[in-house]
C-alpha cells in the first residue's frame, strides 16, 4: 500500500512533465499535421538554459532565495526557449509548408540532430549536475514496516506549477482571440485565412507556446533529477509523443491525460516489474497505440481527404 501511494505520487510528478511536453507535440500536430520530432530536443535545450540561468543567479548574482531563483529561471527559460521555438519554425518548417508530406518530418529530424549536437558542441558532452535545489520532504505517513510515504517539496512545486500553467494555457486557448484563431486554423486553414486570420502568425505562436511549455517541463526536469545532458531530449521526447498519441493527437486534454498515464505506467512498471525494461514498455505502448487505436483516447478519428 505504501509503495503504491509513493509510486502514485512519483508517477504523477513524472506524468506532469510528460504532459507539458506532450502539449507541444499535440498542438503542432493539430494545426499543421506534422510530428515535430525536434520538440524533445527543444525540451533538453530549455533544461540547459534553465541550468545556466540558475548558475548565473546563484554563483554570480548571489541570489539566495530559492523561490525567487526558480521563478526567474522559469521565466527566462520560457522566454529564451520560445525564441528557439520561433526560430526553428521560421527557418526549418515554414518554407516547407505545402511541400511533400514527409518533408517537414525529415526537416524536423534534421533540427533534432542539429539541436542535440549544437548543445553538445557548445556545452560539452558530459552530464551537468546541479546542486540540489529543494531538499525538504513532507512525510505523509509511516507504514507498519517502516516504509514512509513522502511527498517532496520538489514534487509539490512541479505539480502545482504544471497545474497553474495548464490553467493559464487553457484560458489562452479557450477564451482569447489567439486561441480562437488557433482552433480555427486547426479546423480549416484556408478558410481561416479567408476570414482574415494571419495563419503564419498563428502557427508561429503555436510553436512559441509549445516551446514555452517545454521550457516549463525542462525546468521541472532539472529541478527533479538535478542533472541534464545533451542526449536527454530523445527519450523524454519520444515518451511525451507517446503520451500525445495515447491521449489522441490533436487533443489538448488528451495530451495531459496521456502524459499522466505514461508517467504512471513508467513508475509502476519500474516498481513492480523491471526497471530495465521501462523504456521498452513506453516504446511498446507507442507502437501498440499507433497500430491499434491511432486516434487515441480522446482524439477524433482521422478521415483521409483526397
Amino acid at each position, binding site marked *: 500500500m505504501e509503495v503504491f501511494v509513493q509510486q502514485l505520487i512519483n508517477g504523477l510528478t513524472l506524468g506532469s512533465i510528460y504532459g507539458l511536453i506532450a502539449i507541444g507535440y499535440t498542438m503542432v500536430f493539430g494545426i499543421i499535421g506534422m*510530428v515535430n520530432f525536434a520538440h524533445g530536443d527543444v525540451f533538453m*535545450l530549455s533544461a*540547459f*538554459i534553465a*541550468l*545556466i540561468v540558475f*548558475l*548565473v543567479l546563484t*554563483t*554570480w548574482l548571489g541570489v539566495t532565495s530559492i523561490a525567487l531563483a526558480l521563478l526567474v529561471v522559469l521565466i*527566462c527559460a520560457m522566454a*529564451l526557449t520560445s*525564441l528557439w521555438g520561433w*526560430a526553428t519554425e*521560421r*527557418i*526549418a518548417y*515554414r*518554407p*516547407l509548408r*505545402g*511541400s*511533400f*508530406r*514527409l518533408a*517537414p*518530418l*525529415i*526537416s524536423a*529530424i*534534421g*533540427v533534432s*540532430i*542539429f*539541436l*542535440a*549536437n*549544437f*548543445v553538445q*558542441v557548445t*556545452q*560539452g558532452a*558530459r552530464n*551537468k*549536475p*546541479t546542486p540540489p535545489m529543494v531538499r525538504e520532504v513532507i512525510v505523509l505517513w509511516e507504514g507498519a514496516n517502516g516504509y514512509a510515504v513522502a511527498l517532496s517539496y520538489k514534487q509539490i512545486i512541479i505539480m502545482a506549477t504544471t497545474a497553474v500553467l495548464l490553467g493559464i494555457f487553457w484560458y489562452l486557448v479557450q477564451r482569447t482571440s489567439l486561441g480562437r484563431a488557433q482552433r480555427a486554423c486547426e479546423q480549416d486553414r484556408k478558410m481561416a485565412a479567408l476570414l482574415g486570420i494571419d495563419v503564419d502568425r498563428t502557427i508561429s505562436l503555436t510553436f512559441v507556446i509549445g516551446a514555452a511549455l517545454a521550457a516549463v517541463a525542462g525546468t521541472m526536469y532539472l529541478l527533479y533529477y538535478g542533472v541534464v545532458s545533451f542526449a536527454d531530449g530523445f527519450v523524454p521526447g*519520444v515518451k511525451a509523443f507517446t503520451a500525445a498519441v495515447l491521449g489522441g493527437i490533436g487533443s489538448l486534454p488528451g495530451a495531459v491525460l496521456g502524459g499522466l498515464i505514461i508517467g504512471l505506467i513508467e513508475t509502476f512498471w519500474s516498481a513492480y516489474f*523491471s526497471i*530495465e*525494461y521501462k*523504456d*521498452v514498455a513506453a*516504446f*511498446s505502448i*507507442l*507502437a501498440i497505440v*499507433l*497500430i491499434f487505436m*491511432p486516434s487515441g483516447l480522446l482524439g477524433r478519428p482521422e478521415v483521409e481527404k*483526397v
Partner: protein
Amino acid sequence: MNAPHAMTAGTAAPATARYDWGAALKDASLAALVTLGLCIPIVLLRTDQGAGVDLLLRPRIGMVASFVAAVFAARLLHHVLLARRAGRPLVEQKAEVRTTPNAVPWAKMGLYAFMGVAMSFPLIVFLIQGGLSESRYWVDLGILVLTYVMLGWGLNIVVGLAGLLDLGYVAFYAVGAYSYALLSTTFGLSFWICLPLAGILAAFWGMLLGFPVLRLRGDYLAIVTLAFGEIIRLVLINWVDFSGGGAGISSIPRVTFFGVPFSADEGGFASLFGLTFSPMHRVIFLYYLILGLAFLTAFVTLRLRKLPVGRAWEALREDEIACRSLGINTTNTKLTAFATGAMFGGFAGSFFAVRQGFISPESFTFLESAVILAIVVLGGMGSQLGVAIAAIVMVAGPELLRNLGFLKAVFGESFDPNEFRFLIFGLGMVAMMIWRPRGLISEREPTAILKERRAISGSHVKEGHG
C-alpha cells in the same frame, strides 16, 4: 548560422530598379538580434565541471560576437544576391523554372566512374603510399565509407524508392550483426553460411515488424519504426543470456577466403598463394567483400526498378491512393520494399560483425539510423550516385579534415571535425528539404513514363500534394 531565411519573402519586392537597402539592413540587423537572443545563455556561458562537483561558468563573448557577425554578414550577402537577381530581366527567370533537371545519363556515368575508382582504390592507395601496411589507414577508411554506402543504398530502397520513412533501419543492421555473431560463436557456422542467413533473418524481421505498421500513414510509420528500432536495441542490452547484454559479443570468428583462413601458418591464404604473409591481405579482402556487397545492392536495386514491383514502389511513393485505385496491393508492395531494404541491412550488419570481431548494442543507436537517413536524404532520395557521394563526403570528409594541420592552427589544438559532423548532418537535412527536396542529383522521376512528360506530385512542390 540561424538566420531566419524565410524572412526575405516579404522584403524582396523588387519591381523598382532601386533595391531597398534600408530594409535589407534592418532585416539583417533583426536576424543578428535574433541570433544574439538564441546564443545568450547556451553559447555565451559554458558550464564546466570545476574542482569540486559544482559547475563553473565560463563566458565566451567572442564566440557569440562571431556568430552574430556571421549571421549579419550572411543576411546582407543574401540581400545583395536578391538585389542582383531583381535587376535581371524576368524572362531569364522563367527559363530557369522550365529546365527540368534531366541528369540521368550523367548520373549513370558518375556511377560507373564511382565503381571504377572504388574497384581500383586499394591499388591506387598502394601505389601512392608505397606499401601494403602503409596503406592500411586508407583501406580501412574505404571499408567504413563503403559500409555506409551500402547501408545508404539499402535504406534508399525503402525511403527513396517506396517513399516509406524508416527511422529504425539500424535494427536490421543489428539483426544481421547479431545473427552472424551468435550463429558463429554458438554453432561455429562459417561466415559464408551466415551471410545469407543474416540477410534472410533481417528480411524476416522486416516483414514481421512491417506487417502491422505498414497501413499507417507516413509519419506514424516513421515513429513506429523508430520505436521498434529502440525496442530491439533495449532488448539486446537487457537480455544478457541471449546477447551478452551491454558488454556485447567479442571474439567473433574472422573472415576466411572462402574457407581458407588469413593466417601466417601452413594452409593459410598467404602460403596457399605463395605470398609472404601480411595482415593486410585480410583487410583488402574485406574491402572487396563490402564492395561486392554494395554493388550487389546497387545492381539489385537497379534491376528491381525495372520490374513491376519496382515500378509499383515508385508509383506508391508518388501517390498511394492512386495506386490503390489502380489495383496495386499496397501492403504487399510496401512489405517487399521493407523486407528487401532490411535484407541488405542484414548483409551489412553481418559484414560489420565479421570486420570488427566485436559487437555491442552501442553500435546500433538511433543516431546510427539518423546518420544513414541523413546520407540518403542528402544524396537525394532515390539516387544511387547521390547516396554514394553523400556517404563519402559525410563519413570520409571529417576524417580527412582531421588530418589537415592548418585547421588546428586556426581553431586551436582541440579542434575535431568529427564533433561537427552531426551539426552538418542536421543542417544539411533541413537545407535539402528547403532547397532541393528532390535531391541533388534528381532521379526522382519515375522510370516508366508516358512519352509526354507530365509533372509528378514531387515537382509541384508548392501545391500541397503527396
